[in-house]
């Protein structure tokens, strides 16, 4: 009846645009303040140092979009590094057999939690919290000490750099993370599974009544997150060349924070995978800024991290205030 008012810019991308522009603003600020900050490698390091976080957060994005949460990711990363390290070091297995094995293990772990959540209508928070305890506990059963990986293939992959231009380069882990990100964007927006995740997050009841495969999708979401955690664990193993039960402590919170900062609603159904990338980069750049500053004491570090987070979130709210009510 009434033609919709003309729009120059689709308002639903506003939160994403806000996040991206704030990231750019932060980067500009850093470059202006610290020497050596404005270099390609510093920005590539954001990807290299946060590759595992990107992968974990991508999995987490799907979980949160479906209206759930996965607290087990950090522990699964630790468990993966531990299993990798102990199989390679103590059993002498090769990289080619260990990696598929741990990926399958993480995937199965996620599927198991997803099954409990879906079949017995348990709260995701508590199931994945128990999963977090379990995975971390299993690490200690393997060994309480850390295990260094001396295997040459691992070391070679770990130190391999993909040259980009001049002397800027990217690690294998970062390349994998970018690939995962692209695949996830595709899954989220161009496949039935991805759209079902959004639908369930919007209203699970409606999704059931619309005849969407809710059960499979819910289990699938946690399975995917389990897979992503295991993959992140493999990247982490390359990154650290060691297995350790205390690796990636608190990673789940970083991942959740990255997802939410990236504009995804914790209540589900709203958000973008691409936003998550910028959420991770945001957290990363806050740390880089602080490392470059180098004058903050331990407690001021925490306070400043909190303040930067606050400033970012306030600005983001301000910029997105004019978003549609819905």
């Amino acid at each position: 009846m009434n033609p919709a008012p003309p729009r120059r810019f689709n308002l639903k991308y506003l939160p994403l645009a806000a996040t991206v522009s704030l990231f750019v603003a932060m980067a500009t600020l850093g470059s202006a303040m610290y020497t050596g900050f404005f270099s390609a490698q510093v920005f590539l390091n954001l990807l290299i140092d946060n590759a595992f976080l990107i992968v974990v957060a991508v999995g987490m994005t799907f979980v949160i979009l479906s209206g759930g949460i996965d607290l087990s990711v950090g522990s699964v990363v630790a468990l993966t590094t531990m299993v990798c390290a102990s199989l390679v070091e103590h059993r002498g297995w090769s990289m080619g057999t260990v990696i598929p094995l741990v990926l399958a293990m993480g995937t199965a772990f996620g599927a198991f939690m997803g099954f409990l959540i879906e079949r017995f209508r348990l709260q995701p928070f508590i199931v994945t919290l128990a999963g977090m305890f379990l995975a971390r506990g299993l690490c200690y059963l393997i060994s309480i000490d850390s295990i260094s990986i001396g295997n040459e293939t691992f070391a070679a992959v770990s130190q391999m750099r993909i040259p980009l231009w001049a002397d800027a380069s990217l690690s294998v882990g970062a390349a994998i993370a970018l690939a995962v990100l692209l695949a996830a964007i595709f899954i989220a927006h161009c496949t039935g599974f991805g759209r079902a995740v959004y639908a369930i997050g919007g209203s699970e009841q409606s999704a059931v009544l619309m005849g969407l495969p809710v059960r499979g999708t819910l289990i699938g979401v946690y399975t995917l997150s389990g897979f992503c955690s295991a993959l992140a664990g493999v990247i982490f193993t390359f990154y650290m060349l060691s297995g350790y039960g205390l690796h990636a402590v608190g990673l789940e919170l970083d991942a959740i924070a990255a997802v939410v900062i990236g504009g995804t609603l914790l209540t589900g159904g709203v958000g973008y995978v691409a936003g998550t990338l910028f959420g991770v980069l945001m957290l990363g750049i806050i740390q880089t800024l602080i490392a470059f500053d180098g004058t903050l004491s331990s407690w001021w570090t925490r306070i400043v991290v909190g303040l930067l987070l606050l400033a970012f979130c306030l600005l983001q709210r301000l910029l997105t205030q004019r978003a549609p009510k819905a």
Partner: protein
Amino acid sequence: QKKIVLGFSQVGAESEWRTANTESIKSAAKDAGIELKFSDAQQKQENQIKAIRAFIAQKVDVIAFSPVVASGWDTVLKEAKAAKIPVVLTDRAVDSKDTSLYVTFMGSDFTEEGRKAGRWLVEKMKDTKGDVNIVELQGTVGSAPAIDRKKGFEEVIKADPRFKIIRSQTGDFTRAKGKEVMEAFLKAEGKKINVLYAHNDDMAIGAIQAIEEAGLKPAKDITIISIDAVKGAFEAMIAGKLNVSVECSPLLGPQLMTAVKDIMAGKPVQKRIVTEEGIFPMEVAAKEFPKRKY
């Protein structure tokens, strides 16, 4: 002449000990006229690696850090080596096979601290008869000091079958947990407990409270050994509630600055610089206390 720039990545600020360590390094850098780039890793290895990468990008002159954990440093240390920045390890070692990745390691030996505690106990108990029932308060599960202090202690006491560790549980290096766990030990084992071995002073201080609340006399009914020798431990020893504390010195600052200057001047430095550390039984506590800096 240009000021030397030292990038230092600290583990965190998880204990008094660590705070004293940070303070020592900061003030020593100031005294030595070295510009310090300080970064706190909030107990995460990832963060330390990020900080080291940031130091490399900033082209600092020397990088020093206290590794959160021994393993997993090869990649980033190779990057530092490629950027021709010398690296100094403080407080904890790394288990890299390629020792050319760092110039020197200075700091304490956790295993040796455990051994010292064990030796003191063996000495103290040499005249007593019958079993010696020990309860152990471990540090955070999986952390290097917890593993090594346990290992060193066990190494020494296992020679004598009278020594039995009847309970061992983690107290996460904190007073509150130390007290809570000790409370449970006392209820479960009652008067059987002869000795308490705590991996740090804080847990021992918490446990002392639990022992008192259970109506027992700390240091008399139960012999208490702990590690670190921080101020609180001295107070407890002076009050006659703690038998002994093994020193683990956080005052690495001056040593570190000397090493940094030597490196920059091209002088050779030792691969391993051991800090002098003592052991303080309660008898000497009152005399030593005024000399303590942390």
